[in-house]
């Protein structure tokens, strides 16, 4: 077995094995569970990073063996430049979420299951990204959903967690079914379930192209939580335990973007996709503005950041909809940068909730003096989400808007730019209300675990460093675009 194949096995194998071990150990591994999960996540991230030199040499690491021979189903995993940015994002987010969970999660007899499910959730995401086969893709896609759903149902906040988990399952499953129908149509038309075959081009009747693309875009938009298909998101994000929220917002939402890039954009030509350009851009703008307005209207600090995701996914869809090099590159960069910043903001929210025991923004204020480090981290997160330089999201937004101005419809990027002012408004309001002004009576501050603070500070620094040195990540994205879009 070649070294790159071993790394590939580690990426999916480490979380899988660790999850199985944790399931088997049950309450005997209460205190070691976090460490086991952390090591598995670190191995997975290490494996993904180890593939970078392989990709830079122009090789495509792959793993292929027959899984269910009777049904001609093969287990095919492979890494290309399209996969890589998403893979790294998921693995990194999983690691920081697990480290954060060390401080967040109070150990009890179910702790092993908690970490095991977190790893299965991560496995679902990395498997979805690595899969080079329709069957495998869908299995991992649903594993991601089931694992996160159980995490919300069992460890979520409040009595509504069961209902919220069900809602989350039904909604996202509806999207998954649309994706499944699209995949089946493609399978029927090509006779192959391999993505490699699909990438070489598919000939379908024009009506069928429209239908399949529609199913894919809408199906993946449910996962991205684009308005009006976003309704699962605020509840799921608000109720889920914070490490799960971080993984949902920072990593799982990006699966929708990956799906759009992997399927309609990679399979069909730009001419075939052109008809969807304006609807995607418009839907992106609507989502951007709507999410920002909802964030302004919300009172629960966790839901404010949840709605911010709806808005940010709007930017990504807008970028994808431009069908330009800059727009798509910006959208992919935005996935990575949004993951950093959104994880950071949710961590800050978690810290504020842990320290004060309050979630209503009206019941908070004046925390700047008591929690200066958290205030700085939150301010950086807020400025970053508002697209202020020199933080990372500025870079991706620049590319997205540049892509928008390369299209024939210049009013749309202008609208998107004006809509971005609402992002600035809620970001400033969020920080201002929590950290400045007078501290409400009776608001006490509890000490914070270092395990929660450390990843928060790390992400704050990363948001800055990525903004200053965007070239490496940009390089990955450029390779990806050359791979899937050719000459546009």
């Amino acid at each position, binding site marked *: 077995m070649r070294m790159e194949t071993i790394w590939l096995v580690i990426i999916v194998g480490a979380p899988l094995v660790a999850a199985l071990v944790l399931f088997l150990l049950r309450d005997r591994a209460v205190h070691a569970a976090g460490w086991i999960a952390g090591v598995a996540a670190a191995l997975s991230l290490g494996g993904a990073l180890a593939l970078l030199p392989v990709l830079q040499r122009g090789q495509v690491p792959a793993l292929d063996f027959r899984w269910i021979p009777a049904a001609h189903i093969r287990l095919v995993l492979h890494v290309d430049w399209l996969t890589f940015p998403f893979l790294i994002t998921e693995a990194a987010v999983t690691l920081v979420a697990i480290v954060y969970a060390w401080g967040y999660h109070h150990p009890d007899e179910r702790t092993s299951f908690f970490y095991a499910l977190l790893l299965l959730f991560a496995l679902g995401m990395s498997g979805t990204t690595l899969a080079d086969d329709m069957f495998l893709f869908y299995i991992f896609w649903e594993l991601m959903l089931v694992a996160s759903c159980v995490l919300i149902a069992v460890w979520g906040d409040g009595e509504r967690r069961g209902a919220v988990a069900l*809602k989350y399952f039904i909604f996202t499953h509806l999207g998954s079914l649309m994706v499944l129908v699209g995949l089946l149509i493609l399978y029927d038309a090509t006779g192959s379930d391999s993505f490699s075959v699909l990438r070489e081009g598919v000939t379908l009747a024009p009506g069928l192209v429209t239908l399949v693309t529609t199913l894919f875009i809408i199906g993946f938009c449910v996962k991205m939580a684009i308005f009006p298909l976003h*309704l699962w998101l605020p509840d799921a994000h608000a109720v889920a335990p914070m490490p799960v929220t971080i993984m949902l917002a920072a990593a799982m939402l990006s699966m929708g973007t990956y799906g759009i890039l992997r399927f309609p954009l990679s399979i069909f030509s730009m001419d075939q996709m052109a008809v969807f350009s304006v609807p995607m851009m418009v839907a992106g703008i609507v989502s951007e503005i709507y999410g920002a*307005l909802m964030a*302004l209207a919300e009172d629960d600090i966790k839901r404010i950041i949840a709605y911010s995701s709806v808005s940010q996914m709007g930017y990504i869809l807008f970028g994808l909809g431009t069908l330009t090099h800059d727009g798509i590159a910006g959208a992919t960069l935005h996935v990575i940068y949004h993951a950093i910043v959104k994880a950071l903001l949710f961590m800050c929210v978690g810290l504020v909730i842990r320290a004060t025991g309050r979630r209503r923004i009206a019941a908070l*204020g004046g925390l700047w003096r008591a929690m200066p480090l958290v205030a700085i981290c939150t301010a950086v997160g807020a400025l970053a989400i508002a697209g202020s*330089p020199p933080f990372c999201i500025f870079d991706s937004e620049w590319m997205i808007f540049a892509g928008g101005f390369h299209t024939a419809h210049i009013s749309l990027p202008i609208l998107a730019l004006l809509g971005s002012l*609402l992002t600035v*408004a809620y970001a400033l309001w969020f920080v201002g209300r929590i950290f*400045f002004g007078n501290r409400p009576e009776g608001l006490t501050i509890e000490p914070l675990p270092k395990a929660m603070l450390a990843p928060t500070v790390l992400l704050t620094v990363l948001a800055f460093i990525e903004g200053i040195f965007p070239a490496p990540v940009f390089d990955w994205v450029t390779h990806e675009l050359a791979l899937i879009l050719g000459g546009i």
Partner: protein
Amino acid sequence: MAKILVISTIGVPLLASLALAVASRRARPSVAHHTTLAVTGLATLLALALLPFAGGGTVIAVEWFPSMGQMGLTPSPTGLYAVLATAGAAFFTLLATAAHAHEFPPLTGALMLLALAATTVAFLTDHFLARYVVLEIVALCIALAVLVEIQTRRGVRLAGGNYLLLRLGDVGMLTGILLLMDVSGTLQISPALEQALATIGVAGGTPVGMRLRWAVAGFLLAVWVKLGGWPFQLWKRGGLQLALASQIWLYATVMPSLGIYLLYRVTPLLALAGHVHEVALWIGSGGALLAGLTALRQQNLRVTLIYQEAVQAGLLLFVAASGVKEAIWLSLFVMMPLRLLLFLAADIAQPTASARQRKIGTSLLTLGGIALVLFNLLITWWAGRTGVRLDALFVAQAAVALTGVLSARVVWQSLKSEEETGPRRSYEIPWARKMTMGLLGFGIVGGGMAFGPLAQHLMAITSTTPPDVPTLPTLLRHTVTSPAILLVVGLTLIARKLWQWTIQIPTPAAESTEEMYNLEEGLVRAARALRAVVEVGMLEEFIVLIALGAVEGARFTYRVVEQEGLEGLVALFARGAIDGARLTYRVVEQEGLEGLLRRAVQWVLALGRGLQRWHTGRLRHNLLWMAISLALAVLTFVLYGG
């Protein structure tokens, strides 16, 4: 050598800013002030030392953002002079406020130095992306300065509001940059502008021509916001709550200078931008007039100066739209000392100051006012010679006349307040401020007397022919033959005379700065008007009515436009957005368009009774919303795509 100097000019303030930020909790305010003063002085000297290297080509270039080209720093003559003026202004501001060093927050020093470093990059770079980034950093410094000094909810609101307004300008700038990049294929400022200039004239109404016009419009929005043109002077008003150094340099100097420099660069495009050109002419002249009229209602000297700046912004835009690029360049250097002098003089001419202080303040305000009016007369004289539209010129000249009226009023107010008794500050003007103001005053007088050679020197920097500078008699002849100026001056004199004669209102200094429209007062004035109608002759009655109408009109305009219209509109818009968002939240997120979709809800419920037992009411409604959304989305896409 040039490279070392450029790096030092940027690096020294940047490092000092970092040091002050790190040591902010422990550093004494006076130490922070002196450090900031020393660093700005050093930056000024470094900029001076760079002058011999002006025009020497790019000294540093980095590729920050892949595929966006090399971002270089070039000691261009115009950029260097702009750096020199801005850094010098910072130095003089800090020198003049040295007596208040013990009140200087160290973080303000850090922000000022960071803004200075960013401004230097903005002036020296020839890359749009770099310039945009540093402008954003300057905007952030301006907003954060409020938070440093006012750490209450009010401070947060002010900082947020200021930053939002400045970001609106940046939206315009980003639009301009990205459209220009789309057309020219480069982010290098000079080549992009040159290509746009070559294209815009011939492109006409083609898509490329339209893009370029939108680009120019975007840049103009950015300029208008940065200069604080009406109604964007609101962000500058936030600075009035701050210490004098932040107020004068961060708020009144840095961003407007950056705005003027941007206007200077895009002026050639403006003349060829079709309708945008027309709009700029009218926004410039109309904005100046509106700001001037509004300024007449202000009682606070510093607020009046903010509106004066808004008038100036309008006039500059008008002059730029007339194609007098040279005037924009000259204004960068004329306005810098004038601004400093006016703000410093206004600070010591407050009604609470001692008589001696107010005398000095009034004299300097008079000097600054005269210089400002003369400069405005000059630039509109230049604009008039380009064959600009006469109606727009008329409005602009009226605005110039209003600057004269405003200056006279400021001096009058100051003199009037001397006659009043009241609490006075007894301390003397610190020597550092005396020296700064003296230098500025002599500089302005000397610059005015030697304006011709000075303009020639400044124009030689840009390698362009200086415009004709008229003699003072010619300018005065132009003034007395300008119908708009005569009309405004005449109307003002009549209104003032009649006002005093018939109404005998209290002295303006006694009025509240935030005066609201008062119904009772209106009724009293109406009664007085009635008395005037009954007791004085018909002609006088008529004039009184006109005067009353003008005053009440101005008051009403102030209330509607400034207090209710503009701020009310902003508040209304914000409230509308929030209320709308809340309503939408309730209807869509929580109720799921219950009323509208009740029947469909029942239909879905009938189908899913088993499901109903497991979930909450909200899920039921959301589910319907989701199902309908999905169906509609599929239908739309299929119909659209098919």
